[in-house]
């Protein structure tokens, strides 16, 4: 219906009528329920975080830690008691997960452990991972992913690996290769080896990214926000065909990705040579024709697939 509406085949009124016929109606109760739960839990957790951030001097350290730990235990216990699959149960589990981080922050605040911020995010992420596996809640997974990314970002900034692109690329590529080999070693004994193998390809694709990313940082001299925004999209383009078990898609997306990398590299070299504008433009046109060839190949492949 939406596709027809977008193409102008049916009117707005007709779309709503048909949606109602198909059983859709604005479910205001459910909408309000989710909204109030998310907003209420969000505000409450923010309040708790700010409360401990204020670092009340008169409050004894054991009381602070006890309150947060009590919150963690209370949230988790209530979540199990209330049914972890219910909306409130999942919200409580997320609340408990956030309070784990608050606990580490308060602990660091009291005992001045001297740990870096990325270390706190590392332990927080790793501790929440089993919760996410058990909780089966997308909100909890989102929290884990956000924390993991924050950990990675803080680590990269603090440790300055982005400045040493060669080392970083080598480390990242080696880590991925080790993961690939480990998965190969353990995966052979699994019954769902086919699916397991899909993930292996991911570890082959990831080093390409890190190499490309660190090279870009080295080339541009600073983090380019446009490219930073493209990284997750490109990652999705490489990972999704693997998850969908689409080997042709994987190969084509890798092909297009390499083309883009080569084109970017050639352009950079052209820029460095300092040629006159006309030669520059011509060389730019030649180098940029590489991704166009890749894209056209994808298009023809899709057409062939569609026709088949």
């Amino acid at each position, binding site marked *: 219906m939406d*596709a*027809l509406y*977008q*193409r*102008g*085949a049916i*009117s*707005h009124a*007709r779309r*709503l009528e*048909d949606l109602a016929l198909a059983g859709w109606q*604005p479910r*205001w*109760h459910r*909408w*309000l*329920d989710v909204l*109030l*739960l998310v*907003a*209420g*839990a*969000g*505000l*409450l*957790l*923010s*309040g*708790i975080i*700010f*409360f401990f*951030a*204020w670092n009340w001097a008169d409050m004894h350290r054991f009381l602070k830690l006890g309150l947060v730990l009590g919150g963690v235990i209370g949230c988790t216990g209530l979540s199990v008691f209330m049914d972890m699959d219910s909306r409130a149960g999942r919200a409580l589990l997320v609340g408990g997960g956030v309070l784990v981080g608050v606990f580490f922050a308060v602990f660091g605040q009291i005992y001045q452990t001297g740990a870096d911020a990325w270390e706190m995010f590392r332990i927080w992420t790793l501790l929440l991972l089993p919760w996410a596996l058990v909780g089966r809640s997308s909100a909890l997974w989102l929290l884990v992913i956000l924390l993991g990314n924050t950990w990675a970002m803080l680590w990269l900034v603090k440790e300055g690996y982005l400045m040493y692109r060669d080392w970083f690329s080598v480390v990242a590529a080696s880590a991925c290769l080790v993961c690939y080999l480990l998965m190969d070693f353990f995966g052979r004994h699994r019954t769902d080896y086919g699916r397991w193998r899909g993930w292996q390809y991911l570890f082959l694709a990831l080093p390409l990214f890190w190499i490309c990313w660190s090279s870009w940082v080295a080339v541009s001299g600073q983090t380019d926000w446009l490219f930073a925004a*493209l990284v997750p999209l*490109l990652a*999705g*383009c490489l990972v*999704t*065909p693997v998850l969908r078990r*689409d080997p042709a*898609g994987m190969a084509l*997306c890798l092909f*297009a*990705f390499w*083309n*883009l990398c080569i084109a970017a590299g050639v352009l950079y070299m052209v820029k460095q040579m300092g040629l006159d504008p*006309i030669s*520059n*433009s011509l060389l*730019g*046109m030649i180098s*940029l*024709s590489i*991704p*166009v060839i*890749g*894209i056209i190949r*994808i298009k023809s492949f*899709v057409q062939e697939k*569609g026709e088949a």
Partner: protein
Amino acid sequence: MSISRKQYLHEHGLSDGAGADTSPIPWYYAAMQGIGAWFAAGMFLSPIFTFLPDSMLVIGLVGAGLLIGAAVMPEKGEVFLSQLTLAAALLGFAMVNVALVEATGVEGAALPLNVTGTGAAAYVLVRRRFFRFLLSLAVMGTWLVRFHDVAHVIPAIMAVASTCILAAFFVWRERRFLRPLGYAMAFAGPGALFMMKSTASLTASSWVAAVFGLATVLLLMREHGWRRTPTALGALCITALSLAAPGAGFGAALAVLGHAYANRLLEGVGLLWVPVFVSWFYYWLGYGLLTKSLMLMGAGLLLLGVRQVLRRRRVHA
């Protein structure tokens, strides 16, 4: 009763293939094609500046040519061609305005008027939704940048945004070409508040947001036949939110509108603005951290309490 897709299309007098070609390719192919198209746009369009003479007339004419080319290019739903056309149209629009700046200058309202005039012409000419969306944002952005230091420019932008949204989604909703304008204004209204850091309570913008929220709720009530008491309570909540944090009230009204019409995009935009402006509201609140934290906890508990009351009432009903 359930009907098949074929029966559904037959009832509407549509051919069997209607709507079938909406998205035949996986998104990762489309994304790669889109990125490649922008690279290709760089290839085709960047040499223009190398070979063009310095004459502004020529630049303007080439820009107009690109716009006309984008207008006549048929839209077949191909990502590569579509993105290439979009890039050409945007460049053409920029070139025309650069030429006009040379001719008329940028003093007074010259630049915003030029951009608005050419923007309106391009909006009508080029039938591409995303291009129209970007054009609308560009026009509003130009007015904001040029007149940001003039009093009441923010409430004026909010009022224009409200009017455009109500026109696109209530009054002339069958005129699809207004949709991109409506979406752009859903970003531009609160976006202007955000960019100018104008988030104080009880300002002219607050009243504009409150009027927009009330109008939205009342129009929906009339159309959907909602009961008066819950509608009045909802309107009261949106008004209170608008007066305290105008962007949050505006966003809440957008979210309600989006949900009522199963418009996920509008709903998402609205729900995006609410936490942004609520966070900002707390950030700028002139109290200590302890007081703010207690207020946050109180507000959270209040909302959870309201949720519990509503659930109980529903169970008893």
